[in-house]
């Protein structure tokens, strides 16, 4: 950035390995997080919170989960939607069966259930690799959705086949269900993203993350130097599904309010994958930037002709939206295949030398 680390000497290993080694960075990030907690709930209107910020946070968590699996551990997965569904349906079952259970705990437990399912569907990854694995993970996507459609127990025998988020409180404030304010739901979603982004950042810096990256870069070589592929790959599937499961639960409880299996179909899996790729594979910040990009672009595209005063039919609008969306993805991949995170990094390096680049 425009400031430098001159004069900030590291005298301990701990301070040398801090996530944000430069004091200014640390202050800026802390201020940004504080602003994220305070500004939108106080000043943003209902539309902004409900239509943009909450889905952004929910998908950021899912993208974070997929990025751990695909970006760090190198296992291409197209089953994200299925794992999100596991989280959502577990949260629904848990919160209706045990109404006294704290909703935060419900989210975490449904994440754990999703992690177990993730381990089961991660087993083929030990033998199947690359695109074969990607197609194989589609099996989990289709099977899980079919299961939730077919077994009425999952929806508490509701004839409509939908799950509806019951109203639950945290510290006396209603955070889920139809009576919760958008601001309360936003704060819960934000807290999850902040905590789990920090967790992910530390995870990938440590032993676990290093063994994931070793497996990603060359699994046989990793095996030879003592990384156990079975444990490492399954752990990646478990943790990734844990994140996705919580995101799925949030999708229903904090964003949609009620949902059926259609909300978790294959397009969700692709959407989250897009976020990861556009944001940057193997980058925690990238997952969040990617989620923001993919959430904002369609909203932007829908609103542009409206504000310009061009009247288009709904069908035509949708087709143009698809074209522009596809075109944008192509454009981004061609301009910067390593995603928004790389752009940010390049920008930072440029700014460091600015205004004397030589």
């Amino acid at each position: 950035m425009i400031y430098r680390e001159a004069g900030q000497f590291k005298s301990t290993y701990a301070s040398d390995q801090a996530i944000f080694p430069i004091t200014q960075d640390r202050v800026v990030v802390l201020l940004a997080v504080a602003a994220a907690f305070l500004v939108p709930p106080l000043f943003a209107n209902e539309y902004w919170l409900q239509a943009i910020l909450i889905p952004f946070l929910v998908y950021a968590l899912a993208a974070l989960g997929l990025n751990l699996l695909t970006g760090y551990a190198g296992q291409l997965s197209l089953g994200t939607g299925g794992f999100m569904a596991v989280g959502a349906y577990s949260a629904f079952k848990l919160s209706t069966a045990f109404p006294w259970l704290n909703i935060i705990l419900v989210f975490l437990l449904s994440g754990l259930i999703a992690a177990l399912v993730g381990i089961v569907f991660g087993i083929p990854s030990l033998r199947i690799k690359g695109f074969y694995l990607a197609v194989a993970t589609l099996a989990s996507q289709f099977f899980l959705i079919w299961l939730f459609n077919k077994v009425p127990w999952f929806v508490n025998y509701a004839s409509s086949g939908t799950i509806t988020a019951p109203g639950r409180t945290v510290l006396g404030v209603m955070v889920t269900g139809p009576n919760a304010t958008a601001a309360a739901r936003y704060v819960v979603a934000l807290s999850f993203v902040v905590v789990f982004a920090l967790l992910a950042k530390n995870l990938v810096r440590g032993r676990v993350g290093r063994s994931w990256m070793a497996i990603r870069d060359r699994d046989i070589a990793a095996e030879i130097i003592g990384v156990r592929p079975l444990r490492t790959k399954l752990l990646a599937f478990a943790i990734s599904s844990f994140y996705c499961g919580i995101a799925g639960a949030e999708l229903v409880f904090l964003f949609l309010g009620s949902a059926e299996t259609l909300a978790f179909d294959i397009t969700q899996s692709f959407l989250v994958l897009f976020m990861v790729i556009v944001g940057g594979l193997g980058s925690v910040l990238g997952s969040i930037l990617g989620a923001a990009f993919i959430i904002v672009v369609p909203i932007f595209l829908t609103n542009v002709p409206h504000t310009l005063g061009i009247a288009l039919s709904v069908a035509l609008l949708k087709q143009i939206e698809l074209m522009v969306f596809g075109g944008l993805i192509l454009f981004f991949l061609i301009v910067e295949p390593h995603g928004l995170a790389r752009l940010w990094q390049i920008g930072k390096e440029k700014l460091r030398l600015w205004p004397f680049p030589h």
Partner: protein
Amino acid sequence: MGILHAVLVAPFVDIASNPRFLAEVLIGGVASGLMYSLVALGFVLIFKASGVFNFAQGVMVLFAALNLVGLMDLGVPVPVALVLTMAIMVALAFAIERVVLRPLVNQEHIILFMATIGLNFFLEGFGEMIWGANVKKLDVGIPDRSFITAGIQMNQLELIAAVTAGILVAVLAVFFQRTRIGRALRAVADDHEAALSIGIPLKTIWVVVWSVAGLVAIVAGIMWGAKSGVQFSLSLIALKALPVLILGGFTSVPGAIVGGLIIGVGEKIGEVYWGPLVGGAIENWFAYVVALAFLLFRPQGLYGERIIERV
């Protein structure tokens, strides 16, 4: 005990008690399997020559069918419309090579895969914007009639599709094995750099491969369009072709056919005899489970190139 009996015994009793019905199921399975193969072929061609997992193949099928139907609706006679559609698919191949593949050369496979998904969205919006999103009937003169031979009900359209798939594979095999450009394609599939160094133009090869995949998409589009109408859902058959693909192996043309047959027959038998036990509608995931079970024993698919792993 009751469950075990229902799963392990009763379906086989069913099968044995009515062989004629079984034959019908089998023929239906073979026919639909060949239809999947037609789509899977397009995937294989592109993956073989350029290592790109082209997710947009399903939409290319839709796009080809949309163009064909659209031109026919404008009053263009069938042969002319067919030639025009071919020209459009070749032009599309040129455009894809120039705009998408060339700037992304040497990128990781996953990036190219994502690019084809972007292409998928783009083509879907583009095709529907030009020709409209409503369901269209494709009628190129193939009758969709059923008739009965030796007491077994058969469908003329499916038979024609089967014959077409067979001819297509034969033509492709000759093309790959006997022609100069086919040899060049195989060389590129083996080793990009070696192929380049002996003077095979990579760009031309890619255009050729994507054109051939486009032509295969037209055939698949005609068959599927005649069967179920031309509409958005046509692009979803890509998802049906994927298990065929991993079962047969990404790089094998015969694998696409054999994989298609196994998936088609397995799916029909599973749906008819075991489906009712779990409430039906299993065809969405059953194919994937069949493919997965095969893969656990042969990770490269039936005919895929043997995976040799070294450090």
